[in-house]
């Protein structure tokens, strides 16, 4: 087993891991602020990927160029979903909230298939394609870009949430909406912001992912399943947890896919989840 191969696997595992982490951070942020699990989160990813692909196919705009626009559009889409749908069920039972985002998932998936058909589309020969050779190790550029782009985005998110006034308000609303509102923070605005930021994270993931993954109506389901596991593994509501668990899952599934079997590549991830929550029932970083 050559060192070169190991490095390649790690890079590609980290590439996937950062994608999972970005999706999971968006999910956990929304959950942390308002205790709602967004079942349509994978479909947000799918929409972002279609946006990226369509811009490329129509205008030849590279996914890297359209990334800021996709992110902005997804931010707006998150706000839209919050105001049109989520706000209506905020006062409702947990069931109602599950229905709302689950219905949205089914609807968006079907809508994508209605408009685009069930075909697989791929962005071919974008700027971020091919390989680079670093010290004799051949590395795929799209995965390297995913690592770089996603770690930048995660860093930016950390700064926003943990170092700015808005982030402080967001965390205050997450801790205790009632108390936050007595301090002049509008919880509804914070909820909306969480949906916006959560969707924007997915927008970054979608743009980066479109460089090396096909887009089709059910693409979100594949990624979001592991993102849910990442959220739970890290601890619901914990941003650190989502990041660490996302990376761990990315690495683990790539390594198993290579060394064991590509059909079974998610099984060790699932077993890891079970093992962790048996020792720590609230995940790696969960608060009790």
């Amino acid at each position, binding site marked *: 087993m050559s060192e070169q191969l190991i490095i390649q696997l790690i890079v590609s595992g980290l590439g996937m891991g950062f994608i999972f982490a970005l999706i999971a951070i968006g999910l956990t942020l929304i959950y942390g602020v308002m205790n709602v699990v967004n079942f349509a989160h994978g479909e947000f990813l799918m929409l972002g990927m279609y946006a990226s692909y369509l811009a490329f196919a129509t205008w030849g705009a590279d996914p890297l160029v359209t990334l800021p626009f996709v992110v902005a559009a997804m931010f707006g889409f998150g706000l839209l979903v919050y105001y049109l749908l989520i706000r209506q069920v905020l006062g409702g039972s947990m069931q109602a909230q599950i229905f709302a985002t689950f219905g949205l998932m*089914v609807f968006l*998936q079907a809508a994508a298939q209605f408009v685009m058909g069930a075909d697989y589309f791929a962005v071919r020969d974008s700027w971020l394609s091919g390989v680079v050779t670093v010290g004799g190790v051949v590395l795929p550029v799209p995965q390297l870009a995913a690592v770089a782009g996603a770690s930048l985005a995660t860093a930016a998110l950390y700064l926003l949430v943990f170092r700015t006034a808005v982030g402080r308000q967001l965390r205050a609303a997450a801790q205790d909406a009632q108390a936050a509102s007595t301090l002049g923070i509008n919880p509804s605005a914070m909820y909306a912001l969480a949906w916006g930021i959560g969707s924007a994270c997915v927008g970054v993931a979608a743009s980066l992912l479109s460089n090396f993954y096909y887009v089709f109506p059910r693409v979100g389901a594949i990624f979001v399943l592991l993102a849910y596991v990442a959220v739970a593994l890290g601890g619901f509501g914990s941003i650190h947890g989502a990041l660490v668990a996302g990376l761990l899952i990315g690495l683990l599934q790539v390594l198993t896919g290579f060394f064991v079997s590509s059909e079974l590549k998610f099984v060790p991830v*699932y077993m890891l989840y079970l093992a962790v*929550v048996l020792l720590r029932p609230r995940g790696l970083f969960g608060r009790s």
Partner: protein
Amino acid sequence: MAAMPARPSVSSAVALLVLAAAALALPLAIGERPFELRMATLILLFAVMGQGWNVLGGFAGQVSIGHGLYFGLGAYTTVLLALRLDVDPWLGLVAGALVPALCAVLVGIPCFRLRGHYFVIATLVVAESVFQIFTVWEWVGSAVGLELPVKPEGLANFQFHRDKTPYYYIALAMLVVVTGALWWLRRSPLGFVLRAIRDDEDAVRGLGFSPQAYKSIAMAISGAILGVAGVFHAQYVLFVDPFSVLGLHISVLVALFAIMGGVGTLAGPILGAAVLVPLSEYARIHFSGSGRNVDLLIYGFLIMVIAVYRPDGLMGLWQRARVAAIRLTSGRKGSDHAPDVHLPARRRVARHDPRPSA
């Protein structure tokens, strides 16, 4: 007031009799139309599965999105027994209930230590792992699946080839038996403990009951019912493969039908299946010639509408209608009678409002 039945059980009994007669006569009305017969059978099958899910998810409040696992295990058990050991299908039915029940208890041992979303994800993770293992495991047919050996038709062989009506009646019998058993279960001490666990697990533990043990019992019953449904499915289509019996969509649909019908109620899963199966089947044939999934488009939209306007599910809608009817028949002095009618879900909605009172 006189026009109104004093006890709802009388009207319920009449309604049940009418429903039973209608269910028995349905194949006569359907006649020789295979599409409608298949749909009616599917409704019954999904209603049975929903009832099974409800024992754990509704009564005991432990929401699982991995229940396709027990459906699949039931189907695989009977097919494997028939293929490898030439076991009688009715013995296969017994085994197809026992094996999933046992597996459910085993799954429960680690999973029941978890609460809320952590439990939900754990059920999903276990079911998906088994699904992936079955797709590569040669002995169980891997991704290709296994065919059940075709035998002469008849009740003894649990196979009917030309006329599929017997399947309908078997499914109906299953639904009646399961629903009856659960009706009894809900009133039994076990049923009360399960509902107490749903409402406050720590209080139940404080009273000296072991929530883990009771949840395991609920899980075993739930798994057995799903397993029986799986056996029926295998005998009905004479084939199993991982995707059609272990796929995630089975787990999701079962939970969805039970929840949309009305969580924790006996009529909920039946109502959910009776409304949602035809909705998806008709939408599929009317709109989906193009393969563009208009059925799911409508489906998703309806789920969102229900979430916003009727979060307590179809049962809530039914109860609303009953309140309205009672008010009408009692001369519009409705407010005096309103407390007679249970609207539990509504009250729960009011209590869980996370919004600040602004």
